[in-house]
């Protein structure tokens, strides 16, 4: 695990194993303390094959995700860095792809990015120089052809494993599966979906994906997340564009009451039930847990639903970072 550029990262190995893969999301640092990221990393490390770090989700500034990813790599985790087109033009994107790779980060989730209008600095100038599909193509060009967008050679080329997101819950619904195909055409090697609460809609989406044969071209991980309170559920339904939270779920959360332990228990139970239903859908390669600011829930969800990483967890004290001897305290 500690060789600078193993042929495949642990995440890619997991996807190649044919067993269901588990990934989860961990917040990027929200302060200048690396220990906070290490703490979150240790909460989830033994339960997943790879860990995503989001890029200023919802337009709220956090530490650069690649920096947190570099810390995860030191903790023996294979990180998946999110990269959005909202804050960087094509030059910055290319240099970040290369820079992240120098720190041992291979997996990149290429995203368009939530618009800053939903964040706490809506007055910011949006960039959106390229879009997520073009970003996948740029990462593929860097890694496969060993060339920058200009055609200039990158020597040696970075070892990147680009992926993309899919949202089956936003219109135009018929177009969403085709869009996944388009992302694969551009070079996406894995797909992680938006959080599934409406399983029926997700089943329809996956049926179409199978019809088109896309599940055989790319591994698809279904996004799942525990709900922490009625308020959180209503916020996701009303304030987060592109999220669908059916009313029966909100009623269940309301029925669980206000006591923290009871509502959290119910939230995790709902999540586990959704996972059980998703396990029956053919064509899925695994699960992506998004415990929004609630990393400690990952272990409990995995325990209850029987999700286990497809690859064996890293030995204690091992590092996946090529530069760890310099950075490690």
């Amino acid at each position: 695990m500690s060789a600078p550029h193993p042929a495949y990262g642990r995440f890619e190995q997991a996807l190649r194993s044919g067993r269901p893969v588990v990934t989860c999301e961990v917040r990027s640092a929200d302060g200048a303390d690396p220990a906070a990221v290490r703490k979150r990393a240790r909460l989830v490390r033994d339960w997943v094959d790879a860990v995503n770090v989001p890029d200023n989700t919802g337009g709220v500034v956090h530490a650069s995700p690649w920096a947190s990813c570099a810390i995860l790599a030191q903790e023996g985790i294979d990180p998946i860095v999110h990269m959005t087109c909202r804050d960087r033009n094509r030059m910055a994107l290319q240099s970040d792809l290369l820079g992240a790779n120098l720190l041992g980060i291979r997996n990149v989730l290429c995203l368009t990015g939530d618009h800053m209008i939903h964040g706490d600095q809506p007055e910011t100038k949006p960039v959106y120089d390229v879009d997520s599909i073009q970003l996948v193509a740029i990462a593929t060009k860097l890694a496969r052809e060993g060339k920058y967008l200009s055609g200039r050679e990158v020597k040696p080329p970075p070892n990147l494993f680009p992926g993309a997101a899919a949202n089956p819950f936003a219109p135009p619904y018929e177009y969403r599966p085709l869009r996944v195909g388009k992302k694969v055409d551009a070079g996406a090697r894995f797909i992680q979906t938006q959080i599934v609460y409406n399983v029926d809609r997700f089943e329809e989406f996956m049926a179409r994906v199978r019809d088109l044969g896309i599940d055989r071209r790319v591994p698809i991980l279904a996004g799942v997340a525990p709900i922490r309170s009625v308020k959180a559920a209503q916020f996701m339904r009303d304030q987060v564009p592109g999220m669908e939270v059916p009313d029966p779920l909100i009623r269940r959360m309301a029925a669980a009451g206000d006591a923290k332990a009871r509502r959290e228990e119910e939230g995790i139970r709902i999540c586990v039930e959704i996972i059980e239903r998703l396990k029956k859908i053919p064509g899925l390669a695994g699960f992506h847990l998004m415990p929004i600011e609630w990393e400690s829930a990952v272990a409990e969800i995995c325990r209850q639903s029987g999700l286990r990483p497809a690859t064996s967890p890293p030995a204690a004290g091992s590092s996946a970072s090529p530069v760890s001897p310099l950075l490690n305290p």
Partner: protein
Amino acid sequence: MTTALENLPPAIAWFGRLLRRYPRAGRQLNRAAAPFENLTKVLMFGCNMCGQCILHETGMTCPMNCPKTLRDGPCGGVRMNGHCEVKPEMMCVWVKAERRSRWLPWREEILRVQEPLDWRLKGSSAILNMFSGPLLDERGRP
């Protein structure tokens, strides 16, 4: 009629070569033609004059009206009613594009992965750019 149509592609190619041979004149012609082309397209399709038209691939809907200027399809933020995540009063450009593209015989064009935009060409004539390729001067201006 048939002969006229048959002669069209070679005529366009010849015209494109001509423009490339005389790039200064080509640029002048482009600058002269751009307002007329863009006026029609602004009136008809709400064109944003990016200079690299893909209207025919997007159901004749200008993707540059998307607040994220996405050229490869809708973002994940489209609201349940099909409206834009950034401008709730506006129908998502790509919901319209997808619906309209179904009427076109070349509907699968919407699935083509687009090249990143050349922002230098903004405001120039997309039709002439298509014929001749971008004609940039020594300082990289259209």
